[in-house]
């Protein structure tokens, strides 16, 4: 007979006094879930920078980051599905939502955001879709025909309307994206039993880290994608993205710093165990990886003069690692402190699966899940010109001139 364990006992090591029913109930899936929604929000904000604020130099990444945001969004619910012990009941979220619960609004927020992103994608790619629908035959033709939603109007006037609507959608999408992720922060911030989570700053901390991870994700994917296709990489775009990254990095550092300083200064009941978490048990993950390697080092790298492509790439990669570690530290770290404040729970992920539960909780599904958005992006790129409308050297030089021109004008 198979050995039976309580849900959570397989990957929880208890030390000191922990309540008998206490396990790490939110595991790797809940680490990945805010990571993915964070990337969604960040990527979308980046694309809106071009559409709304007219940052011309971001044009080559605008379409790509929009579609990337969508690809990530499609995968955003899957870690939750893996997490639920009763997946088939998940429909109840729509059937009988209980809005006093912070997570009940998830479907509403998610679907609203999905509608905005999809609509924007539709308007952005409409001319191309219509063109393809007229040209292509067979299955692909059918697909494009369906994607036109029955409208073949690509007159000058129609395109002008499109343009206006895109701008509106992109503008509306920013608060929606911020809401989507700030809301994830709220889900954690409102858990009153976990001292590490319970702070009103949580939504904003999550939002800032979302944007830095999203922008970094776009920098990395853009550079890799262009290099793979042997396309020209526009330095102006990269530099512009890095500028955004720097600002939000500073905001993230300030917010997360305030949070810790506040806890240390007020030194409530839980500070003794929290400080043990911060400075001993999670010291490497939190201080070294999350703070030094994930935030401070990239900030310094980005602020050093004469930013090179390689340096931007390295910084962005470090930020991606740092933000993932931050999600880990928040989700796992928060639950590591026993609610008795007298013990610790250590998360020990089951690496080698020996039954369904250990497989689902292990690294395999989650790795697949993290790769899926890139696969989706690849597929979307087959259908829509996500990467094609990129700058050539000339365009890039032009925007670079524009940028420096602007800079001159300021002086």
């Amino acid at each position: 007979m198979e050995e039976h364990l309580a849900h959570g006992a397989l990957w929880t090591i208890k030390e000191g006094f922990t309540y008998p029913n206490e396990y790490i109930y939110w595991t790797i899936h809940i680490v990945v879930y805010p990571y993915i929604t964070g990337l969604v929000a960040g990527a979308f904000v980046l694309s809106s920078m071009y559409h709304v604020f007219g940052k011309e130099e971001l044009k080559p990444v605008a379409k790509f980051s929009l579609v990337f945001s969508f690809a990530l969004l499609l995968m955003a619910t899957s870690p939750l599905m893996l997490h639920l012990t009763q997946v088939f009941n998940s429909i109840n979220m729509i059937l009988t939502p209980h809005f006093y619960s912070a997570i009940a609004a998830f479907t509403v927020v998610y679907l609203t955001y999905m509608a905005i992103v999809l609509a924007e994608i539709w308007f952005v790619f409409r001319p191309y879709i219509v063109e393809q629908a007229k040209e292509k035959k067979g299955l692909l033709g059918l697909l494009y025909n369906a994607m036109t939603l029955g409208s073949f109007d690509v007159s000058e006037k129609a395109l002008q309307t499109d343009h206006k609507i895109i701008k509106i959608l992109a503008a509306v999408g920013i608060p929606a994206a911020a809401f989507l992720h700030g809301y994830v922060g709220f889900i954690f911030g409102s858990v009153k039993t976990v001292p590490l989570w319970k702070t009103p700053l949580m939504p904003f901390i999550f939002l800032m880290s979302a944007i830095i991870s999203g922008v970094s994700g776009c920098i990395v994917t853009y550079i890799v994608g262009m290099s793979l296709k042997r396309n020209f990489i526009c330095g102006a775009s990269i530099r512009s993205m890095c500028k955004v990254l720097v600002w939000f990095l500073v905001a993230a550092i300030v917010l997360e710093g305030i949070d810790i300083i506040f806890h240390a200064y007020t030194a409530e009941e839980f500070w003794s165990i929290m400080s043990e978490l911060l400075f001993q048990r999670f010291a490497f993950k939190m201080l070294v990886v999350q703070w030094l390697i994930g935030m401070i080092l990239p900030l310094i790298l980005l602020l050093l003069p004469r930013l090179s492509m390689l340096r931007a790439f390295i910084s962005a990669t470090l930020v991606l690692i740092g933000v993932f570690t931050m999600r880990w530290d928040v989700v796992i770290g928060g639950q590591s402190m026993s609610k008795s404040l007298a013990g610790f729970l250590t998360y020990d992920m089951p690496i080698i699966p020996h039954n369904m539960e250990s497989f689902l909780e292990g690294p395999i599904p989650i790795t697949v899940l993290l790769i899926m958005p890139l696969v989706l992006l690849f597929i979307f790129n087959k259908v829509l010109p996500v990467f094609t409308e990129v700058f050539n050297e000339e365009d890039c030089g032009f925007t670079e001139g524009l940028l420096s021109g602007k800079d001159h004008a300021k002086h």
Partner: protein
Amino acid sequence: MSHAWRPVFVVLAVVAAIVVMRVILVPSDFTAKDGDYKYQWHRLSAEQVSKDFTVKHRGRDFCGQCHPNHIEKMKDSGHQNIQCENCHVMYEPAKKSHPINLKEDFGYLLNIGIDRSRELCKRCHAELSYRPKTYTSSKGTEKFKQIDPTKHNPGIECAMCHDVHSAGFKTAAK
């Protein structure tokens, strides 16, 4: 009408689909009872499910139907407040030894057997400095006697010497 409305129709269609699905799938008894949406938003029939759960421990009176002398024996003893089921319910079905099938005849689901281990008695009688030393019975507050299991006849089952039910000693006759 402008093409720009088409995505709106798609959204409306999705919303309509969700509303229709809700109408079909939400149980009719799902409401906020007493108007309390915060704490009482649920399927009313679920309450009945919790009420209908089978009662398993039936207490002294049930065992007393067939074991009246044990009840009598225990009535005035130190063990008067302890339920038969505390000592006689086995959590491992294999240890069940009750000669009469209580499940078939009475729908009684617990496994009755005999546990003669010292561990059973030690749960209450092992001496710990912080274990309460008094005990309330029908006679009022009494001393609760504890032994140090490492010194009190170690290795021998308590029931060898003690008559468990009367909380006294076994007569030599047995």
